[in-house]
């Protein structure tokens, strides 16, 4: 009903940082610097796990660490793309920007990665604040920033999925929108490159999502600021195209087919509102291992906003307020895209994303804005006690989720995998040979039954050689795989072997969670007629039903070859 809309110029802008505020929604105590400082302080709970002296177990495992390390060694190679234990897909993979930021930081790779994630995360909140303060006031923008910071999906990205490129994308998105829409109130050609730069950064963080973001922002601009939409759209388009150009120049950056059928990962309605939290991977069907909720606080505050908005005699925003209408409509539309009933629409979008639920970030963005609008609609909510109440509710609603699975990686693991199996499905982090010693032996600690092979000396017949390994799955393993360990002589003759399910069958491979460390040990009973060494071990996994081995690069027979020493 465009005829009912007031002219855009008469309506306060939603975006520009210097646009005149429609309504003073904040207490004097909240100046912009104070709000920024407050927001950084309030991000403590989100960022705290990053200060753990170790690493978090995420689906990404050590892939970012290995690749950052590799990039540092190849900084001069401008055609570099992440390639260790991963296949780079410009649309769906973590983009190049986080890798380059981490590689250039004077920190250890894990610390640099955590720093990048943390900065990206906080940037999102700060960007929301700066973007929205002219519309929602300092307090409203602060709440929007806090809600955005503490979206469950943000926590999932950082501490469950380890999708650090995506985290950076969500952090930069408000800045990119801010930069683009700055052109609404300041339509200067000279500012276009600056705005385009933000969109380029977005594209280099997560290109697939950038496309969706571009569509969303275009719709927003055309809805709210139609006459002034050209320059902002142009800048966003230029930035996105530049990202495409950069990726197009990289020979190894090839657009890959989807690793998993996107349509199998539609959500069920209950998942958007479920309190379930987990560290597993996304599964076809309803039983995902990770939480895909929208967020209680975001929904609650958005509902409150709608209630305030639709009440009688609301003097702040008419019921035709296009900003509120747009973000409410966008929330509903994006939510509907999570369900299988919108399969037909995904025919156009499927190439951009791995999972449909990656749009949860956009839903969160819209809900955050709506949440902050509550304080714009009723300024009494900006009083410190009520403002603090709202902030506490927001953080409290996700506080239990801010407890990642921490791991203390061994230094050797961070240097790179010893081998990868399958299509970057499984990594062998390290291995140790030991010899089992029956009974209690002097020099061993209580409970120890093996001694390292180096300390043991040459292997003797009838002894039990133990191969201890640390696996790290990098994707979900569909089949229930068995482990084979073959002890061979110098000529490749099998002397002894172990075949069995990992961890004695107590933890089948389909249950392995990407990123977790699986410790296992395989005993090999040495024969009576054990010849003298040297020996080698062939290690691998296979499907018992088909006898198909998990492929290993550089070995056609699917074996990791280890020297016994």
């Amino acid at each position: 009903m465009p005829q009912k809309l007031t002219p855009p110029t008469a309506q306060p802008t939603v975006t520009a940082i210097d646009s005149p505020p429609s309504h003073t929604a904040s207490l004097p105590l909240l100046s912009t610097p104070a709000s920024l400082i407050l927001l950084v302080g309030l991000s403590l709970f989100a960022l705290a796990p990053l200060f753990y002296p170790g690493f978090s177990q995420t689906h990404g495992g050590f892939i970012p660490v290995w690749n950052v390390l590799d990039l540092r060694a190849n900084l001069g190679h401008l055609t570099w793309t992440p390639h260790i234990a991963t296949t780079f897909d410009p649309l769906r993979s973590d983009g190049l920007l986080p890798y380059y930021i981490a590689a250039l930081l004077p920190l250890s790779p894990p610390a640099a990665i955590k720093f990048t994630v943390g900065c990206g995360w906080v940037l999102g909140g700060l960007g929301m604040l700066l973007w929205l303060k002219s519309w929602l006031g300092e307090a409203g923008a602060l709440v929007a920033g806090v809600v955005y910071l503490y979206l469950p999906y943000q926590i999932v990205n950082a501490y469950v999925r380890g999708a650090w490129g995506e985290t950076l994308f969500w952090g930069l998105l408000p800045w990119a929108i801010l930069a683009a829409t700055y052109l609404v109130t300041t339509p200067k050609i000279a500012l276009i490159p600056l705005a385009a730069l933000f969109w380029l950064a977005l594209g280099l963080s997560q290109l697939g999502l950038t496309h969706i973001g571009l569509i969303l922002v275009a719709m927003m601009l055309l809805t709210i600021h139609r006459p002034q939409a050209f320059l902002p759209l142009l800048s966003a388009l230029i930035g996105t195209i530049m990202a495409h150009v950069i990726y197009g120049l990289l020979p190894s950056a090839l657009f890959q087919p989807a690793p998993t059928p996107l349509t199998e990962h539609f959500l069920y309605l209950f998942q958007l509102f479920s309190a379930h939290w987990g560290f597993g991977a996304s599964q076809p069907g309803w039983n995902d291992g990770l939480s895909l909720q929208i967020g209680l606080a975001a929904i609650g505050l958005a509902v409150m906003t709608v209630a305030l908005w639709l009440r009688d005699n609301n003097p702040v925003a008419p019921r035709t307020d296009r900003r509120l209408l747009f973000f409410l409509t966008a929330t509903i539309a994006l939510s509907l895209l999570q369900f299988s009933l919108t399969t037909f629409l995904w025919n156009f979008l499927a190439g951009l994303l791995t999972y449909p639920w990656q749009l949860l970030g956009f839903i969160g963005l819209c809900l955050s804005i709506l949440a902050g609008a509550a304080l714009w609609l009723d300024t009494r909510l900006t009083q410190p006690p009520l403002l603090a109440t709202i902030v506490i509710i927001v953080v409290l609603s996700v506080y239990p989720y801010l407890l990642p699975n921490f791991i203390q990686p061994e230094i050797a693991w961070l240097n790179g995998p010893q081998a990868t199996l399958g299509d970057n499905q499984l990594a062998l982090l390290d291995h140790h040979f030991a010899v089992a010693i029956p009974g209690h032996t002097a020099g061993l600690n209580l409970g120890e039954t093996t001694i390292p092979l180096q300390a043991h000396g040459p292997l003797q017949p009838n002894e039990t050689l133990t191969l201890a390994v640390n696996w790290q799955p990098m994707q979900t393993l569909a089949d229930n795989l068995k482990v084979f360990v073959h002890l061979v002589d110098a000529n490749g003759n099998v002397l002894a072997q172990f075949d069995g399910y990992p961890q004695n069958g107590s933890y089948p491979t389909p249950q392995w969670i990407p990123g977790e460390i699986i410790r296992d040990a395989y005993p090999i009973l040495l024969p009576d007629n054990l010849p003298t060494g040297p020996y080698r071990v062939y290690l691998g996994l296979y499907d018992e039903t088909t006898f198909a081995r998990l492929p290993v690069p550089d070995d056609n027979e699917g074996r990791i070859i280890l020297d016994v020493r």
Partner: protein
Amino acid sequence: MFGKKWKGCQGSGVRGQPLAVSGQPLAISNQRSAISGQQPSETNDKSTLDDSPTPTSQPANSPNSTNSINSTNSTNSKNSLYLWLTLLLSLPVLGPLLQPGYYWGAHDARHSVYFLYEFNQAIQDGIGYPRWAPDFAFGYGYPFFNIYGPLSSYTGQLFIWLGLDVVTAVKVVFGLSAILSGLTMYLFVKRLLNPAAGLIAALTYVYFPYHLFDLYVRAALAESVGFVFVPLVLWGFYEVMARPRLTAVLWASLAYAGLMFTSNLLALMFTPILGLYVAVMMVWAFFGKAKAEAKAKVDTEVEAETKTLSTQTPKLHQLHQLHKLYKLHKPHKLYKLLAGLPPLFTLLLGLGLSSIFWLPAFIEYKYVRVDQWVGGRFAFGDDFVELFQLFSPKWGFGTSIPGPNDDTGFQIGLAATILLIFSFIIVPKLSDPFSRRTLYFFQTMTLILIFLTTPISSLVWTLLPLSSFAQFPWRLLVIIAPFISILAGTILVHYPEPIPHPQPPASTSHYQLSIINYQLSPLLLATLILLSSYPYLKAEVRDPKPTEGPVSQAALFRFQQSSDEMTGQTAWVRRIPNWSSLAEQVERGGEIATKVNYTALPADDSVGVYSMEMDSVHERLWVGTEQAGQSVTFLTPYYPGWTATIYEDLGPHDGNLDQEVGPVTRVGPVVDQPPISTTPIEGWMVVPIPPGSHFLELRFEDTPIRIVGRWVTFISMLVWLGLFVVVDLVKK
């Protein structure tokens, strides 16, 4: 009055608006401020630390008298509402204590029970101020209460006298400490800011995660009781600094003494901070512009009131008086320096009152072995709190272990942290300079103390002797808790100042929201504070293991053996035992009737020893020998205060003392006070006995330093009471 900045006082209205509720109290408080040259206060604090005569607020026939009475009643009822809210909303903290049974597995759960058990034994033996715990160290004894604050034990003893068993008494003390800690925090913050802020501060304090950790994970009784006194001490010193007067000095000194009696460790950690607070406030006063600011405030207020009110209004009249006072009063630098005397006197009086405890504890601390407490897993080392732990929701009942993977929680608390962050925006807006500076100090201390809990402060710990008493850096959370709680209260400093809203007259929804805004926001915050700590409001209640209970002497010994923590020894002991014949005796169903080591007596029966009587701190023997150079060994390690006395045996005896009328009638005059020697390894006392038939008494008595401590406490009490009477007389 508080035109430029927010006011931090209760019930004060908005500038330019009718002060129907708080106008009068505000004026009264300002009068006091002027007299003392310090910050404004309120009417409702006069029942606490205020000895100044209550000014007649206004004539009864004044035009506003009815309104004033109504408003005072309204303010009082609001105050009592917040007080009741504080108490009611603190009750859920008692939940785990109301479960039948006891959380025996908590870190110090057994300690707390058996400390009281031993204390009770000593009290039952008629010892008013116990210092020696006879059953500790497997029955050998240990001067535990000489170095451990006794107040929590005395409180527990009170409930034992009321008929409760030891475990229940301990639970009651835990519960009381939790509730009273909220109450004391409320009272302080009500005075510092306003009642609504008091409610928030109190609940933040009660539900502070480390407080719950002390209650239900550590089960540290003394430290839990210490939570009651920290706000009192802060309040006392705040009053002494803000408005120096005798009553404030008296109550502050009593609060400090209470803290010292409760936990010397806490007092040790807290006293330097108090000293720093006094010093900082003095420096601030010396170089600051508090007076100028206060005068400017009054000037502004007078000007404002002159414009809006007639000159006959009591408020304006009092403001004019204030104005004159400020004009007359020109504070001298010397006066500012002398402001340090009241807190100094307070500290000295507090130390004097508690010297019966801390003086011997401090001097005679070197005569106990503390290697078990500061060595092994209790050694200072890698027990810092990682930064992420301060903000992590993790909770558990495990112990602190070196590294970041503690199986317990050291978080500051979600609501507390968020309110602390808000305080950095709010405090600079406070109008009253003294309160503002006090809160600045608390903020600074909070940040410093948080820094000191983290590993990046390890260099500071090595340079400063902090580890010698703080042991684990996370123990500093006990001091962080009150500071953060007070700062959390600042969120309501301007409550209930309304914000104009450009809306038409209220619709139904508007009206409902108004209620939420103005009436319920403290309650909403209070609820959230509770909710944020609710998941941690649990204890691992279970039946006791044989090494824990049911409470008995045998169980105490089994506990000591299993924990290997409470076998503290005196400095004369070289080998710390892990069991004893005395414990074995009790374990087999017997009881300890004597501490004489009969195995050390000559095998030829040349020495006869018969234990006549024994209690916690003495044993009297009949001893007889024909040979010189004989001695009696007691299964008790030496510690200063143990004395041996030889009495003449007056009556003939036939070798069977039981048939005599009574040994006392036969105890003659003192023959000798032989020196006590010790066995080289065990440190057991060896007392030489003269040839012949005698009575030997071994008694644990006061050393000179204990006597000095006792007398200093006694004199301090007299001084305290004397001054109290003087104040009372002056008031009348």
